[in-house]
């Protein structure tokens, strides 16, 4: 199952645009070149933020603009109902920046996606940026990102910026950079991002920024093997030195026993044929090297026994 990212100049809407954060980032997205066509805040229809008209409902905003994608800056208690409203009004892609979302609300958003075919990125995500489309549905600092052939998928926000910055300085632009979110459960998984990257010709290589906690990277590694993922993949895992049973900032970044350790993730990814960087600064060189292996790149063996 994959997803569609808005094309160049395709209209997008901002839910929660009248908030301080929503308004700030609506302006930054506009200045990046994204077509922020409308904002939505219940009860605030008729206002304007950064010259963008505000509507009281997503339905109105969708009818007026034809937008099919939305970025949400609504408070955590309102996120689930805002997402339901957006999907009901025809939104196909939702980027949920909101953090501190109850886990059961996230699970309900996953079911909403399964039932409607819509896609939620997040919650607790920095969003998506696609420099070639001047598309920014997110809060990332755009100067760190340049157009190119890398697909960058990250569980962490600032670490995604850091890695994008290093790639950009190393003349390795990005076709897309997407944060899956720092929560224990993400509506869109790293594995789903990989499926997306497999189908997009403009993606020449993939960089994964993982971290301790959960088993998303282990599942990703299995998926690389099972699907014989055809493109070079470089991974970095933060938290090799982290203690056990402590939440390291992200709600998702916690090790229980042997579950969620960096060692387990690094071993699984290596087993799947990925190159693993030990520091963020060595990522560009490894990406370059794995690309120049070019046709010599052979898909790893299948995990399924014959």
């Amino acid at each position, binding site marked *: 199952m994959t997803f569609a990212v808005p094309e160049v100049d395709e209209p997008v809407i901002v839910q929660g645009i009248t908030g301080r954060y929503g308004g700030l980032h609506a302006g930054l997205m506009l200045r990046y070149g994204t077509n922020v066509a409308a904002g939505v805040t219940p009860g605030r229809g008729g206002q304007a933020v950064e010259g963008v008209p505000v509507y009281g409902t997503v339905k109105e905003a969708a009818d007026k603009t034809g937008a099919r994608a939305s970025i949400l800056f609504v408070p*955590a*208690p309102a996120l689930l109902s805002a997402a339901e409203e957006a999907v009901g009004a025809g939104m196909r892609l939702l980027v949920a920046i909101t953090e501190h979302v*109850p886990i059961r609300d996230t699970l309900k958003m996953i079911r909403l996606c399964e039932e409607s075919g819509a896609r939620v990125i997040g919650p607790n995500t920095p969003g998506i940026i696609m420099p070639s489309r001047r598309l920014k549905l997110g809060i990332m600092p755009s100067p760190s990102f340049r157009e190119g052939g890398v697909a960058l998928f990250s569980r*962490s926000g600032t670490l995604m*910026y850091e890695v994008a910055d290093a790639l950009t300085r190393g003349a390795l632009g990005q076709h897309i950079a997407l944060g899956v979110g*720092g929560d224990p459960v993400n509506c869109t998984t790293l594995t789903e991002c990989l499926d997306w990257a497999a189908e997009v010709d403009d993606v020449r290589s993939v960089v994964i920024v993982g971290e301790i906690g*959960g088993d998303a990277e282990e599942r990703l590694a299995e998926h690389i093997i099972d699907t014989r993922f055809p493109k070079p993949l470089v991974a970095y895992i933060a*938290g090799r030195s982290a203690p056990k049973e402590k939440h390291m*900032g992200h709600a998702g970044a916690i090790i229980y026993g042997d579950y969620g350790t960096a060692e387990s993730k690094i071993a699984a990814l290596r087993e799947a044929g990925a190159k693993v960087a030990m520091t*963020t600064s060595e990522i560009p060189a490894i990406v370059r090297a794995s690309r120049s292996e070019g046709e010599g790149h052979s898909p790893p063996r299948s995990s399924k026994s014959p």
Partner: protein
Amino acid sequence: MRLFEYQGKELFSKYGIRVPRSKLAGDESQALSAVEEIGLPAVIKAQVLSGGRGKAGGVVLVRTKDEAKREARRVLGLRVGGEHTRALLVEEASEHTQEMYLSVSLNRGRREFVALASRSGGTEVESLAKGAMVEVPVPLEGLTDDDSYTLSTKVGLYGRTSSEFRSILLKLERLSREEECELAEINPLAVRFDGSLVALDSKVVLDDNALFRHPEFSQLPPEDPLEGEAAKFGFAFVRLDGDVAVVGNGAGLVLSTLDLVSDFGGRAACFLDLGGGAQRDRVEAALRLVRGLPNARVILVNIFGGITRTTDVAEGLKGVLSEAPMALVFARISGAEEEEARALLSGAGVAVFRTPQEAALAAVKAVSR
């Protein structure tokens, strides 16, 4: 938020899950009158949130009044994993033939809740062989009678024990769903001689993000004053036992900085994530906080400015440094106006570097001198 055993058992009772008779005691004399009321033999249990309570001597069976008095005093003075005993739970001693395990928890990878059970529970649960634990997925609307049969059959129960198990499972799952728990665990779930079941312990972890829907639960202020300070500013803060205090903006960024310190042979004194942005006041508050860490000899700051003006961050650093002498500060500041930020800090007692590697290496070298 993790609940104390007694709070978890109050929830169990509310949902109709049988627990032993018990009474909470805040001091020695309350403990003695609780023993009086519950009767002997009784079990005295330290109320702490840290694991390893049993091994630390925090659970003890008492048979006489003298023993009760002596043990109540001892357990009240106990520390488990650095945490003081907050209260005692005095409980009737429960005779039983078997200890099982039952919980409802989140399976992150499968992105659903699951009910887990095992015929053997208690302290052995962690060393259980794979396959000894059986499970059923928990739908968002809750478990059905059929689901409870499935799990009971997988565990291999029959007769009264099976019917009690199924009833407790459905109650525990409803508790988990309605109170929005990350984890609701009964371990051990004891089987008595007549086949009936009783919850001897509770481990309940509420979803912090859902507490706005459950105002009846209030967070205890942390025992550690620095953790309290961090909570006030919304910082993610973890004390560690090394000497390099690590501060940065963004959980992943700080984690990766800890790794650098460790790779260079250093040891971090803390993890402090001041949040995605890097506003001046937050940088200042974070520095004041880590200044209070007795084990921190140097401070390593890693700020990826992004849309924040790094000159703001630099002004913040300078401001705090001018207040009081403090540990050596090594900083990597990247983002808008970084040259100006570096200029501002030259001569202010902060060594500024272009990359996290350089800053981490310098910080580690400074403490190993």
